[in-house]
């Protein structure tokens, strides 16, 4: 590992020691952050998978019903039946912070589903009724899936970034600082020894002359 390009002085040594201290502390903190994020992530990803599986199967059945309904009815009738929403999901989109990552947080405050179909039963098949009824339930689930999936996506990004930071500190920054500190200390020691021997030499020379 290359050492930093600095002058071997006491001043620099002091600065570098302070930097090493900060780097070590930062490394520890980031490592802790990473651990906690990974723990939260693994909980979220399991929830994500569960919701995704549920949504996939439910949505498939709804869309199948819908396809049946479409086959039985005329184009205009189907337009009429599905034009007006039977259920309006009232969502409120906010953000929250998971380990300082700003993620979406959605609360479904109110879902109006009164079983009121905005069409006459005479012109619409029963499959359409079912799919209209089910779709609003599926959408509620889709909203929570959307929330969780975005959270996992953003958390995954952040975990990756954090991992890079931890690695940069652990394998580049800290060894570099340590090596430079070692270099400066040995250089300073070397200088000290040199000056001591010089002093001793001078002293002996003076002693010699005084004889």
């Amino acid at each position, binding site marked *: 590992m290359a050492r930093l390009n600095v002058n071997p002085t006491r001043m620099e040594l002091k600065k570098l020691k302070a930097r090493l201290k900060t780097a070590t502390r930062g490394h520890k903190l980031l490592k802790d952050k990473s651990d906690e994020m990974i723990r939260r992530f693994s909980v979220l*990803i399991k929830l994500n998978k569960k919701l995704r599986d549920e949504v996939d199967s439910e949505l498939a059945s709804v869309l199948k019903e*819908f396809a049946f309904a479409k086959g039985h009815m005329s184009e205009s009738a189907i337009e009429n039946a599905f034009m*007006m929403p039977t*259920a309006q999901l009232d969502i409120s989109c906010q953000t929250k912070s998971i380990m300082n990552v700003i993620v979406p947080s959605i609360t479904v405050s109110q879902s109006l589903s009164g079983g009121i179909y905005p069409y006459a039963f005479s012109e619409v098949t029963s499959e359409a009724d079912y799919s*209209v009824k089910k779709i609003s339930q599926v*959408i509620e689930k889709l*909203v929570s899936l*959307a929330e969780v999936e975005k959270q*996992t996506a953003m958390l995954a990004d952040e*975990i990756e970034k954090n991992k890079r930071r931890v690695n940069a500190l652990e394998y580049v920054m800290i060894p570099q600082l340590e090596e430079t500190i070692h270099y400066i200390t040995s250089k300073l020691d070397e200088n000290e020894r040199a000056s001591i021997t010089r002093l001793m030499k001078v002293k002996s020379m003076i002693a010699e002359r005084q004889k």
Partner: protein
Amino acid sequence: MNNKMAILGEGDSVLAFKAGGVDAYYATDREQAKSLLRKLAKEYGIIFITEALATEVDDLLKKFNQTPYPIILPIPSGSGEDGYAASKLKERMEKALGVDILFNREDK
């Protein structure tokens, strides 16, 4: 952010979502989907997109992952799921954890 939901799909199946109070939009090809998605991203909080279209505009979807909103959620279309969402899930898991903790059991 806006509390509205939209669906972007290529077939009639998006019509079913209208009954649930979701605004439906159609796109048939890649370019159309991209420009529509850019427009919708400014107006809606949650955008559902069918997996087939999501695969087409994958590079654009990555950009939206930087901010909390809009949320763009791939959903299976009428013809069933094609594994796009599952592969994304797997990708994220491997990115964050380095290992696959959910799917490896099924592979065996």
